[in-house]
């Protein structure tokens, strides 16, 4: 049975991962991008994802786990469709990062690493995301929102809600 036939991933992602392993001087270099791309599609690194990645790279699932658990963007449980990551590190903190975080907690009714009941949002307090000069900043999935005020929180949530309603 070919690896393609057994893949958990969409044909596009599978093709992308097939190319990825060939790109480097060593196959294993594809591991971290592969995990991230797989997570982007599947939502989290399930046991099955880990097994497939291990097979694609040619290492043991234990080895994949050793690496995956090191990186804080990789997760092993599903997050919300829109993962809100609020930076509270120093530059953001000084400009109200915690207030933004609190407002999200209040609006979404969840805390750090929580997921809303409808699975639409999850919330995370994160370390510096490299937007310190435009603080306070957050990321929703990979999108940056910077120079925020508490008042903008509702608008941001509304934006993603409508994005969801519009079928992305």
């Amino acid at each position, binding site marked *: 049975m070919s690896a393609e036939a057994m893949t958990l991933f969409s044909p596009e992602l599978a093709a992308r991962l097939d190319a990825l392993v060939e790109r480097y001087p060593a196959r294993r270099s594809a591991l971290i991008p592969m995990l991230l791309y797989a997570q982007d599609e599947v939502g989290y690194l399930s046991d099955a994802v880990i097994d497939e990645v291990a097979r694609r790279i040619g290492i043991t699932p234990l080895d994949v786990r050793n690496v995956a658990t090191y990186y804080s963007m990789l997760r092993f449980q599903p997050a919300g469709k829109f993962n809100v990551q609020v930076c509270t*590190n120093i530059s953001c903190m000084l400009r109200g990062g915690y207030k933004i975080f609190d407002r999200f907690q209040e609006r979404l009714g969840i805390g750090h690493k929580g997921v809303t009941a409808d699975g639409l949002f999850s919330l995370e307090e994160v370390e510096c995301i*490299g937007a*310190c*000069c435009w603080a306070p900043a957050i990321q929703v999935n990979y999108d940056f929102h910077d120079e925020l005020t508490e008042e903008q929180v509702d608008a941001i949530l509304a934006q993603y809600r409508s994005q969801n309603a519009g079928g992305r």
Partner: protein
Amino acid sequence: MPRLVSHPDEVKIVTSRFGKGAAKIDTYLELGGYASARKALAEGAEWIINEMKASGLRGRGGAGFPTGMKWSFVPKQSAKPKYVLVNGDESEPGTCKDHLIFLHDPHAVIEGTIIAGLAIGAKMGFIYLRGEYRYLIQIVERAVAEAYERGFLGKSIFGSETEFEVIVQTGAGAYEVGEESALMESLEGKRGVPRIKPPFPAVVGLYGGPTVINNAETIATVPHALAMGGAAYAAVGSERNGGTRLFGLSGHIERPGVYELPMGYSLRKMIYEVGGGVRGGRKLKAVVPGGSSTPVLLPEEIDIGMDFDQVGKAGSMLGSGGVVVIDDQTCMVEFALRTIKFYQHESCGWCIPCREGTDWLKKSLTRFHAGFGTEKDIDNIQYIAENMMGRTFCPLGDAAAMPTLGFVKKFRKEFEEHLHGKPCPYAHHPEVELV
């Protein structure tokens, strides 16, 4: 889209193409792009290294190591392939300059990478961006694809016999991976744990081959330094600190942003003129001069020129150029706590003093800030930090200990004000996260 700022004192070299659409290769070419790479190809390795030495360019990643010298350490002959590695992991709190470079001028990074490759005889370069910078990764990848289309990358770059490939790599969330050897581990698909040195990367680096690793800003500066001529570039800066630097002003500053200023530019002017002073006209309490790992400076300590040597003399470090301004309404215990919380979260855990030390510090400070501190805690915090210094496997341990020592030493009184169950005098955001 991050806001671009400007100030008359700026000397726009690295930022000269910002906001001009140079992420597109045609624009980049119109603005003089890839001329330095062509010249470097024609002149050869020795010329490049000599020019870089003359430029006085020192690494923008934090340590300030002279770039030309670093390149010259790579052995000419090597059984294993050599590599160029661009460090775009940019995760030091207070730092977001590489962010702008990738956004506005990705081709400068590519061009710099090619030049570094020519200087050391590498056929492959990697540009490693932190995973959170996905949109920037896409921009850089697009730029790389353009460069391939034009034949600036590939089997025969610029129509020559020389081969050079560039791969853009994503991280997945780990500050420690910014450390050079941990970055190599990560690029090899492993946990971001640093390597034993020696051997140093210049001799045994990525995939065991000789490797030059530079910060993205350092690399983006290279084509400019060559275009200007090493000596001319050096002349812009201060003594032994060539050129300009991208300083990120953040925190309680009126006009936060990334400014390109000559090395040695006055910190006081940077805050009060370039940045427009402390936000809301408040009083300055402290400044973190070079990213969260650099010890704070007090208002009376800001009459220094911002270069590696002068900030070092003042007892801190120029670090990543992230200047974090703190006003008089800030609780320094909370600030210390937030700083250490970061290092605790980011410690790779490999060595005992850092792994256990950062955790202990975080727990003590958390309790302390919540009003459950004792006199002895202040000494203990200092004792732990002192005993981490210089004892850890990589500099992250120092990066956590140094600022902590600065906070405790310079703001001991403020720590004492938190004693005996007294509420935080600033009552900002008491993080009661007691375990």
